[in-house]
């Protein structure tokens, strides 16, 4: 036992229940056990809802290495100077207070035959139902010249926290008139408007602090989310600052040299001052180790988010291949609630209601200029299918845009309380 390597935030009694020798549900005396890997938008929500709604009838353990979760959502606003880093950090105290056993460690293996999860600290945790929401990892070799060891020279900042702070520090240290480069990712990736909201926020910062600086985007995609809205905003606020090179001009044919700080697009080499490399993405590695992925992602059944590979293993959020929903925090949170209802029903016989999903993604383009895109979804036999949707329109009034931004702030508080409960 390596108790010292871990931190338990749950009550001792609850924590020791989890640590007891593996037992099976059929024992009759043991409570059903749910283990959740990953305490982000999907995992924290699922753990909280199962613990809260089962009122102690289910043992819920959350495995998450970090003691503080920094949301990717609003991390671009931190880059733009609209938020402080503390504004986007959350702790797990509220989940522990709801009765979730929070174990701060990495899951390093899943044995689906014995239904156990192995932790980096060496212990194993047994489950009846396992929920994976480990976010994303990067596809090796996706950007020539870049691998994860180059993330300090050329940060991705697509997992929030120290990476985001590093990118901000590099932005602030740019020489006058310097170049901020972004290597944008191919589809599918987390947060479709994320790279472009980031460009807007970087431009907002530069306009005020380094107005002759330039932003260069190498983009393998011919088009991107909310493109008309972003381009309208870039023309209005940041005219002449942003240059996006799409695939027709070689935006997909890119390599970087982190030591020399150069970016090559279609053979043309440019010296850059900051290089934000956002490589192609895949499911968090633990999903692959659990053997529930097919290619880069984990295929799931839309009705309850169970994997095609194993009815007792569920995958939420970015790692899941579910159909039409974009990979977003809102989507992960929405999927988690459908999954929580189904898992609780399967383990305790509580009522199971039909799956309904929704997503809305807000983006900030400049001060008080917010836009949004959203849709509702339902479960079909093949996938999560889009039902209905809307998107902000170009040329909207300043009032609408301001109200949209204010709404996004309300959403942020709403979703983070929905994920983490109220901290104690």
């Amino acid at each position, binding site marked *: 036992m390596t108790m010292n390597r871990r931190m338990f935030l749950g009550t001792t009694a609850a924590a020791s229940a989890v640590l007891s020798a593996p037992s099976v549900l059929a024992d009759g005396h043991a409570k059903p056990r749910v283990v959740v890997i990953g305490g982000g938008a999907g995992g924290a929500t699922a753990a909280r809802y199962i613990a809260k709604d089962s009122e102690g009838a289910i043992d819920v353990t959350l495995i998450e290495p970090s003691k503080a979760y920094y949301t990717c959502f609003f991390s671009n606003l931190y880059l733009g100077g609209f938020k402080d880093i503390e504004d986007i950090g959350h702790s797990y105290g509220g989940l522990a207070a709801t009765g979730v056993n929070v174990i701060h460690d990495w899951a390093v293996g899943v044995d689906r035959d014995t239904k156990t999860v192995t932790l980096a600290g060496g212990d194993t945790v047994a489950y009846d139902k396992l929920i994976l929401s480990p976010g994303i990892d990067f596809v090796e070799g996706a950007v020539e010249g870049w691998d994860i060891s180059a993330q300090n020279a050329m940060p991705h900042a697509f997992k929030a926290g120290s990476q985001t702070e590093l990118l901000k520090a590099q932005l602030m240290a740019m020489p006058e008139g310097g170049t901020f480069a972004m290597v944008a990712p191919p589809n599918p990736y987390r947060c479709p408007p994320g790279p472009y909201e980031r460009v807007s926020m970087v431009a907002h910062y530069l306009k005020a602090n380094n107005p002759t600086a330039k932003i260069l985007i190498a983009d393998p995609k011919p088009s991107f989310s909310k493109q008309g809205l972003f381009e309208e905003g870039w023309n209005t606020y940041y005219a002449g600052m942003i240059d996006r090179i799409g695939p027709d001009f070689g935006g997909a044919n890119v390599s970087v040299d982190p030591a020399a700080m150069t970016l090559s697009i279609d053979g043309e080499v440019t010296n850059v001052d900051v290089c934000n490399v956002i490589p192609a993405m895949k499911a968090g590695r633990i999903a692959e180790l659990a053997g529930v992925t097919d290619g880069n992602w984990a295929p799931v059944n839309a009705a309850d988010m169970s994997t095609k590979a194993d009815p007792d293993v569920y995958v939420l959020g970015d790692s899941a291949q579910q159909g039409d929903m974009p990979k977003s925090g809102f989507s992960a949170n929405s999927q988690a609630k459908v999954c929580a209802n189904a898992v609780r029903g399967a383990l305790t016989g509580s009522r199971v209601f039909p799956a309904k999903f929704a997503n809305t993604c807000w983006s900030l383009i400049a001060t008080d200029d917010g836009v949004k895109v959203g849709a509702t979804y339902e479960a079909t036999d093949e996938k999560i299918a889009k039902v209905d949707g809307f998107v902000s329109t170009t040329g909207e009034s300043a009032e609408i845009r301001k109200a949209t931004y204010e709404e996004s702030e309300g959403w942020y508080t*709403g979703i983070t309380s929905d994920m983490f409960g109220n901290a104690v």
Partner: protein
Amino acid sequence: MRLACLSLSVAASVLCTTVAADTFGDPVAGEVVFANCKACHKVGPEAGNGIGPHLNGLFGRAAAGLEGFRYSRSLQRAGSNGLEWHADTLDAFLEDPRGYASGTRMSFRGLKDQEERLDVIAYLRGFSADPANFPEADPTATATDHDIDPEILAIEGDAEYGEYLSSECTTCHRADGGDDGIPSIVLWPEQDFKIALQAYKNEQRSHPVMQMIARRLNDEEIAALAAYFGSLEN
């Protein structure tokens, strides 16, 4: 402070910092401003509680002082600490409701224009039993008089189903009734809740997210949500 301010305001116009003491609002203009408040607050002979408490006899009433209305804890605390509604406290509250009582469920960003506040406070004064002591004052909201089939409104909701459905709402609307840019929806009277969602569904109310969400809720589901949100513990 308040009393000093008010008594001076009757006699002369000195030293009052919260409300210019000699400015008395125009109750007729105030009735127009009150349109902002009407969706949630009723006032006048038949007025009862709705989403917000009725505002008859408001002046001199302790904050959270109406029996039978479920106030936020924040206002209950303020009331037990001695907050009473008078022109000056109303003026401060209405200017920035959440700045004044951070946990209030009143989803209203406030009236920044002092003249509007004075007018609506003057209008409300007319509905307090003895308005003689009070100068001016104001409130919050938007009208709910949409035409919805009474049979639809009569549907009894399944609160347990509503609890499940509510998890979609709480991604944005906080379960504790807080509001940072997205209105509170907890503890509304069931009818008001049903009317609001039906009105989004029929596009009588405009908001793209809410119209989209409401469009795919059937009448039973709307009733279920109303039943659940209406039944929450404070």
